[in-house]
């Protein structure tokens, strides 16, 4: 999948965008656990992050397919 980070999540991920290979299709809930494991700097952020899959806000049960675009979205401040 392609992992995109925004705002403070960029620093936590170390980059605004990277490929990330995971063995299988998994839920967004499981993805959160994997993120905390693989990117420890992300762990303290995770509770505040929304996650979008292919441009749509995901829930814990949303499935992430291979090739998906997964965006890590801190609380927003537009306007």
């Amino acid at each position: 999948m392609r992992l995109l980070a925004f705002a403070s999540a960029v620093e936590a991920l170390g980059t605004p965008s990277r490929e990330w290979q995971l063995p299988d299709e998994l839920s967004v809930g499981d993805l959160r656990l994997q993120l905390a494991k693989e990117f420890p700097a992300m762990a303290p952020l995770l509770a505040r992050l929304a996650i979008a899959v292919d441009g749509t806000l995901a829930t814990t049960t949303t499935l992430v397919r291979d090739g998906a675009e997964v965006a890590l979205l801190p609380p927003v401040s537009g306007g």
Partner: protein
Amino acid sequence: MRSGLTTVPLDVAAMFAAIAAPGCGAMAAFVGAVRDHDDGREVVAIDYSAYESMAAKSLEQIAGETAAAAPQLRVLLRHRLGRLAVGEASIAIVAASPRRDAALAAIRTALERVKSEAPIWKREIYADGGERWREDEPLAPA
């Protein structure tokens, strides 16, 4: 002119012109501009960034759904990205309607939705050299 993101200065007069209609006697606008302070710190600029593809869709959806709330209501909503100096406009929302209540309600509704539904962030640049992400509102589903 479509609702969405831009990197050039927002032009409220052009936006009003784009939604004007002979049946719409009431037009309302909201413009958000960079303030010179926040939480007691002096601000010199704000960097706006976005998850652009999703934010563009979100702004179009908010404008469309807000407009659908009343007959003949028209709404246009544009957000600027990049580094903005104090006084520069970051967002402009305009509405036109046969009824003033509908136009005034529309700009308020659209503004509140942008603030919680659009994946857009500001990073404040302070006079003391510091910088800080503002992460205020958990992103809400549209």
